[in-house]
């Protein structure tokens, strides 16, 4: 069976060109970059080259890039690092109610240790209001952390105006840009951020490596203690092949970003419009235009997300859902709930995220399969059953066309 992969926001395949660039760094150039001998120094050179490529992609200076084990570590270092370093100045952090768990759970961790966290609400499209950020700042505020784009619904946040507000107030500003770097233009100076998280495997690089941009003069505390790597901010022997891979991925992204974003936006809108035309009682989640070029997130009424995802998987289509049905986690996606979706619609969500190897024929294939899959599950749904004795009609008017 031919597989159609539409879960690029979860992870991307590593670009074969990236793999090729990494290979020599497992065997030929195996030295420890901290060693002073030739073998070590050629590895160090490779790391510095990669650093320059990542810096160029986001408009930073080379020495402002710190390599980490991935986006999660970058987020942890930004939040906990700043919290620990600035504790004497204040204990208040502002973030949003739709952050990735890497930020959200770090905030919960800090909250338990005496920090005060403001979780700003978003509007129905998932947008943060810059003025809400301004109002939330007080004289104890040490950090603002707001994601560049949301991983579930794809909404791109107004980072630049928030950056101006943060600068005026003299508060550090971090943005989790794991979903945007390499996909839409990111410039740390235009965005006005002091810290910015990057993950390699979201832009066709390898897993297990990422970076944190740290503006000159911004000094988070280190979380990893040991060696003096990365300006003593991140101890641990460098993941040389991974870092080289991230560098190569950044280089390729810089060349392809504009063309690819335009191509994906076309495919994205074809998929969204195609679904809305073919299936009734479906809505788009997230913002219609301030949106990642590759994100489609819909709620399909009367159908639960996991069963939708599972059926599509059997049809060879890989997607994801914001519905979490398990005894350990009865809450559906915190993002969809923050957008104000009723829980049953949050349970009915399906996310398709497109990427470099998504072709127009893949979109047409999904549009061919999805209506049939939805119809099968709707035929089973008690939300579409006849009203029971003494019960009002379900009011959705779908009783007639349950197919």
């Amino acid at each position, binding site marked *: 069976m031919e597989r159609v992969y539409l879960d690029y926001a979860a992870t991307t395949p590593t670009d074969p060109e990236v793999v090729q660039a990494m290979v020599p760094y497992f065997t030929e150039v195996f030295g420890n970059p901290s060693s002073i001998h030739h073998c070590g120094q050629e590895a160090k050179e490779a790391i510095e080259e990669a650093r320059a490529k990542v810096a160029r992609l986001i408009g930073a200076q080379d020495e402002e890039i710190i390599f980490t084990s991935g986006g999660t570590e970058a987020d942890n270092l930004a939040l906990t690092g700043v919290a620990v370093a600035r504790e004497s100045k204040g204990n208040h952090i502002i973030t949003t109610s739709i952050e990735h768990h890497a930020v959200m759970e770090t905030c919960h961790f800090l909250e338990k240790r005496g920090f005060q966290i403001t979780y700003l609400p978003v509007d129905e499209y998932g947008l943060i209001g810059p003025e809400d950020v301004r109002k939330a700042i007080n004289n104890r505020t040490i950090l603002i952390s707001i994601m560049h784009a949301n991983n579930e619904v794809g909404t791109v946040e107004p980072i630049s105006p928030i950056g101006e507000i943060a600068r005026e107030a003299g508060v550090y500003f971090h943005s989790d840009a794991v979903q945007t770097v390499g996909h839409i233009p990111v410039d740390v100076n235009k965005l006005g951020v002091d810290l910015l998280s990057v993950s390699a495997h979201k832009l066709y690089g390898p897993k297990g490596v990422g970076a944190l941009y740290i503006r000159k003069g911004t000094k988070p505390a280190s979380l990893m203690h040991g060696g003096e790597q990365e300006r003593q901010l991140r101890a641990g022997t460098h993941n040389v092949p991974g870092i080289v891979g991230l560098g190569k991925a950044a280089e390729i992204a810089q060349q392809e970003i504009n063309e690819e974003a335009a191509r994906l936006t076309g495919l994205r809108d074809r998929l969204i419009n195609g679904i809305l035309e073919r299936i009734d009682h479906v809505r788009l989640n997230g913002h219609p235009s301030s949106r990642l070029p590759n994100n489609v997130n819909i709620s399909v009424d009367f159908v639960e997300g996991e069963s939708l995802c599972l059926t599509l998987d059997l049809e060879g289509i890989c997607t994801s859902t914001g519905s979490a049905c398990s*005894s350990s986690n009865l809450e559906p996606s915190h993002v969809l709930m923050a957008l104000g979706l009723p829980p049953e619609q949050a349970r009915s969500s399906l996310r398709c995220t497109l990427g470099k190897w998504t072709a127009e024929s893949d979109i047409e294939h999904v549009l061919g399969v999805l209506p049939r899959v939805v119809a099968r599950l709707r035929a*089973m749904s008690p939300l579409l059953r006849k009203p029971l004795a003494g019960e009002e009609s379900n009011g959705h008017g779908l009783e007639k066309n349950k197919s």
Partner: protein
Amino acid sequence: MPIYSEKVMDHFMNPRNVGEIENPDGIGEEGNPVCGDMMTFYIKVKDNRLEDVKFKTFGCGAAIAVSSMVSEMAKGKTLEEAKKITPRLVADELEGLPKNKFHCSNLGAQALNKAIDDYLKKQQKEGGKQS
């Protein structure tokens, strides 16, 4: 490794006894779409046996497979036998459920039980009228 057993996937993709029964003898509903799963069971009773069982389910793969399995296990059984279908038995028949999905088997067994209780209650009422 796939998250569900082959048996679960079979019942999920080819659920037995999906649908509604016209003028059922009992109806039982458990769960709600807010918490993620909702099941409606319909039963037809003849000579104290479940002559027909049908269901409709909104829920994850496990919830749909559980409903299908419960309906299959219950069909043809006496009411007393059917009431002895426990969540554990259902999960075992499905060759196991992921730990975090075990609550789905509770819902299935409870929905069937409610349908039987609904039937028994109606019987009592009708019996009361006749005497």
